[in-house]
């Protein structure tokens, strides 16, 4: 999908993350083009989550490297400042504010984010995209099912109104049918013009919707390329993603 003048919304250069003496991320560099869906894949412990959380300012660790968001440097900024600059994180495990209702969770995101006067329209959009949330709008977040919580997490992102969205293992703990729905929702969010960087262990699911893919192993990028290429390169798929060698679904 080549554009006339492709713009990189997010550029990460030589990211290092250390927890004490342990290096979780060893010099990762990646670029996310505007409007694209970029997936970071790899086995457990490859450093995917650390990378994502470090970019989002959601990590208490020793971090070095350059992170450029929409042309501005954001490395080292606190999480809420990064949100104000246009990048938001959907953390692993959804992390819904349990005692708040669905609507309160959404309004809160509108309050803290960049919605401003757009808030009513964004709220309507969320309820449009996820009608179940509209039905359950007065239910406390803690009483939603896993899939509903994921929807709420996405809804919150829409309310925050960022340009770049980071997602940490969105399919975690969901049934295959739900995973399908979630991946399609991510596509829909991308179609709103948002730029998405997602981390996934479920390589199959991620490859369905990604435009570009990075594969991480032991804190380093070992492979990158257009998703289509990776899907057909069975060698890579087996070695790093544990995928069986058959044609993609």
């Amino acid at each position: 999908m080549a554009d006339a003048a492709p713009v990189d919304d997010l550029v990460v250069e030589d990211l290092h993350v250390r927890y004490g003496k342990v290096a979780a991320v060893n010099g990762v560099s990646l670029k996310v083009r505007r409007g694209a869906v970029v997936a970071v894949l790899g086995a457990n412990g490859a450093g995917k989550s650390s990378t994502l959380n470090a970019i989002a300012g959601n990590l208490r660790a020793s971090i070095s490297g350059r992170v450029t968001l929409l042309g501005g440097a954001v490395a080292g900024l606190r999480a809420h400042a990064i949100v104000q600059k246009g990048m938001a994180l959907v953390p692993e495990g959804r992390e819904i504010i349990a005692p708040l209702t669905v609507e309160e969770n959404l309004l809160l995101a509108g309050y803290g984010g960049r919605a401003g006067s757009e808030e009513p329209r964004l709220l309507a959009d969320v309820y449009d995209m996820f009608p179940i949330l509209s039905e359950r709008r007065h239910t406390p977040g803690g009483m939603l099912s896993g899939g509903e919580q994921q929807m709420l997490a996405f809804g919150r992102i829409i309310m925050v109104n960022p340009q770049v969205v980071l997602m940490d293992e969105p399919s975690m703990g969901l049934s295959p049918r739900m995973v399908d729905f979630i991946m399609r929702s991510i596509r829909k969010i991308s179609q709103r013009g948002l730029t998405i960087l997602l981390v996934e262990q479920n390589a199959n699911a991620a490859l369905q919707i990604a435009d570009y893919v990075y594969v991480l192993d032991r804190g380093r990028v070992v492979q990158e390329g257009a998703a289509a290429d990776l899907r057909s390169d069975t060698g890579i798929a087996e070695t790093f993603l544990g995928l069986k060698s058959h044609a993609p679904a």
Partner: protein
Amino acid sequence: MLAEQLLVNAAVLGAVLTLFALGLSLTWGALDVLNLAHGAIFVASAWVATRLANSVEVPFVALLVAGMAAGALLAVVAELIAFRPIRRLISNKRQAELSMVAATVGFGFVIDNLVGRATSHQVFSFPIGAFEFRQYDLGVFKAFNIEIIIFATAIIGALLLNYWIMRTRQGMAIRAIAFSPRIAPLLGVKVDNMAALTMAVSGALAGLSGSLMVVWTSGMDISTGHSLLLRAFAIVVLGGVGSVKGCVLAAFLLAAVETGIVAAGYGSMRDAAAFSLIILVLLFRPQGLFGTGRAMRA
């Protein structure tokens, strides 16, 4: 003493305790912060109101506002010099709690001594004549205007606080922070600002209760703050951390029990009521009457 008058006494004491304990419960429930300087802030604010009344002729409301402002200011200072750095620098929960206790004890100590110096370590009281006392006969009992004011203020204060927490955006943000200080910033919530705001409200409540109490009683000194602090702790524990209605109920309950004990002639055992309450609640229902149970973690 007539039973009706005892009722009035208990009601007013309960009202003062309500406002004071709400301040403690707010920061404890929202920020996981136990402000042991809350009592010192109470006394300092009362002193400020008294000094103002001694110096200039202002309407009573102005004195209350001054007290609230003083309380809010001191609480925000505590946030800036103690709680914020602890949030930043100390990640271990146990360690943070310990440091918080020590830091607020130190801060309270400083405030206590400053007030002590200003009052020559004597009991200070509201200047006579600065407030016009009037007694009303309400049929069943007699009540002074100040007593009615205090009671009404407490009820209104509790209702306003509840509204703020449950129905406004700021309240949502504060509840979110209370649930997870990690997640709130991911939604763009400015935790530091909210923390400062919460502390300011908490301090204002301490200041309000202090300014009201100093008019009602014959005088107070530093030890009043200590005594109130322990009772407020008992109230918050009994009512459940973070619950407004629990706090109100527990405050009036404790006030009733204490008034009863004193009236029955066991004045020196009055403080035992609060302490016994703490132990009993922690043993049998640690989350309190209306607590969420969340705060009972290690």
